[in-house]
């Protein structure tokens, strides 16, 4: 792992945690938002995945895919502008960045789009062709990309995937064929312990639980509470049928390198439970 930088803001509440190479062509860059209220709550009543005394983090990730050309998928919240660019410079050196691809416009995903365009003026901005009102999100001049379109980066080959489990309409996922990595954006996010930053799910001491997944999704994708579970299950099956990922790289969770399809199956339990359980927790947490 490269060095860890911390932003000066808020005494470590939002922290850039560095980067890690997760395959020959893919780097994982991580920013964490510490949640002291959650840590206090969990310390008194620890869930299965949590050891009392640890920080609780919710993360935002960016993924850099490098071949002869490079592509950055998602780009962290604005507060991480300087460490993000520093990390990219360290990884890319003189090569520069060729493509900037925010999955969607929300701050944790596209917060540094404009800053990156200034830092890398020759990079091409790509954005989902789905949804409307691109101009409202500073994406008016982006090249629109759609399901099935591919980019050969000279080594890795990426394919744009229509987002299924999503919040905003202007939204795109990504699949890298060489590593069979699905970049699932808001799907499969989890809170994690501070000591587990940049650990992959298979490296964790505790198994990722359904409750842990619910904790994230009930905040990030509240519509799952009023979903028809069967409909969502069919959509999850289709993801498996079409892509059969061996790795899943979510924006708000830890990278899943083993049993990726099993985690998509676990999401069915998450969806079923969310759709049948009344809301019981306050929504101030996990913002």
């Amino acid at each position: 792992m490269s060095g860890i930088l911390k932003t000066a803001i808020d005494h470590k509440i939002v922290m850039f945690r560095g980067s890690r190479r997760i395959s020959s062509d893919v780097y994982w860059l991580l920013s964490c938002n510490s949640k002291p209220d959650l840590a206090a709550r969990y310390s008194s009543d620890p869930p299965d995945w949590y050891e009392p005394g640890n920080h609780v983090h919710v993360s935002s990730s960016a993924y850099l895919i490098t071949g002869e050309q490079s592509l950055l998928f998602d780009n962290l919240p604005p507060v991480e502008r300087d460490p993000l660019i520093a990390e990219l410079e360290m990884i890319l050196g003189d090569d520069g960045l060729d493509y900037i691809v925010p999955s969607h416009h929300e701050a944790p995903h596209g917060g540094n789009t404009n800053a990156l365009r200034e830092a890398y003026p020759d990079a091409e901005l790509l954005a989902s062709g789905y949804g409307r009102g691109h101009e409202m999100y500073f994406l008016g001049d982006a090249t629109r990309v759609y399901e099935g379109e591919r980019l050969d980066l000279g080594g890795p080959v990426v394919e744009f995937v229509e987002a299924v489990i999503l919040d905003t309409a202007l939204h795109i996922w990504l699949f890298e064929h060489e590593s069979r990595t699905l970049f699932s954006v808001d799907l499969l996010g989890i809170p994690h312990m501070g000591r587990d930053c940049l650990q992959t799910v298979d490296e964790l001491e505790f198994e990722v639980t359904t409750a842990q997944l619910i904790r994230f999704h009930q905040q990030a994708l509240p519509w799952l509470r009023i979903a028809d579970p069967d409909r969502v299950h069919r959509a999850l099956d289709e993801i498996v049928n079409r892509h059969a990922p061996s790795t899943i790289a979510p924006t708000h969770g830890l990278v899943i390198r083993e049993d990726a399809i099993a985690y998509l199956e676990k999401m069915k339990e998450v969806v079923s439970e969310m759709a049948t359980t009344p809301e019981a927790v306050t929504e101030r947490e996990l913002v």
Partner: protein
Amino acid sequence: MIRHETIDVAGETVDWISECYEVGGKHHTVNTYVLSVGDRYVMVDAGTILEQAEFKRLVDDVTDGTGIDALVLTHADLPHSGNVKFLREQWDFDFYCTFTEASFKPETMGLGEAIQCDKGQSMEIFGREFRFLIPQPRLSDAGHEMAVLDSELETLFVADGLGCYHSPEHCGQPGDGVPRDEHVAGIAAYHLDALPFVVFLDPHKIEAQVRGLFEDNDIDCLAPIHANPVVGREDVLAYVEAFIEAMHVVVESEERPSSVSLPR
């Protein structure tokens, strides 16, 4: 196009700034509302980045040049917060939102400090109670989104659900009196475009949530950010019925939004 109208809610004037954008022959609206609370001005949501100069001119007009004293944001997305930075440069005001502890908290976005609003709680702003609600139904494209209820005017400000495309001839006109089938079509089309996950939803759950909202609260004016406001309890309830019908249409039809082509 951006315009300013006023609506009469329980004898009080609410200023309504609307930005209209053409969508396949209909119009999509992005609304900002300004409430006069005593001699202060409270704004709900802050429009898009696309009409800043005219937005400022209209706010100047509405506030007689004094500017706003408070801003309440339903959520951080740009069509709702597009003018916040711009407004900060013009005037000092209290800023209320739900995301003061998020990774994208207002200070880190160049929006200055904000006062945390917690859903399920209420606050007094210049002596008037505002209640911050979990959006019901859960038609939000941002987890931190809230609905805002002005308890005195019994007016519910809501985004992004309950939106509706309108006909060009209805620009700047409240939604009272629009034929039901026109509302049903506009609501369905808007939700398919803006919130494509609606195709995965259970319309009976949506119905239960929205009926609960309007049964549990006295709402005499519905002020969506993405639909023309509806004034009067009877017309509000008629709009709610149109919304319920639209949700059944959306979920049960074979038509799919462009952004979701996977099987339901």
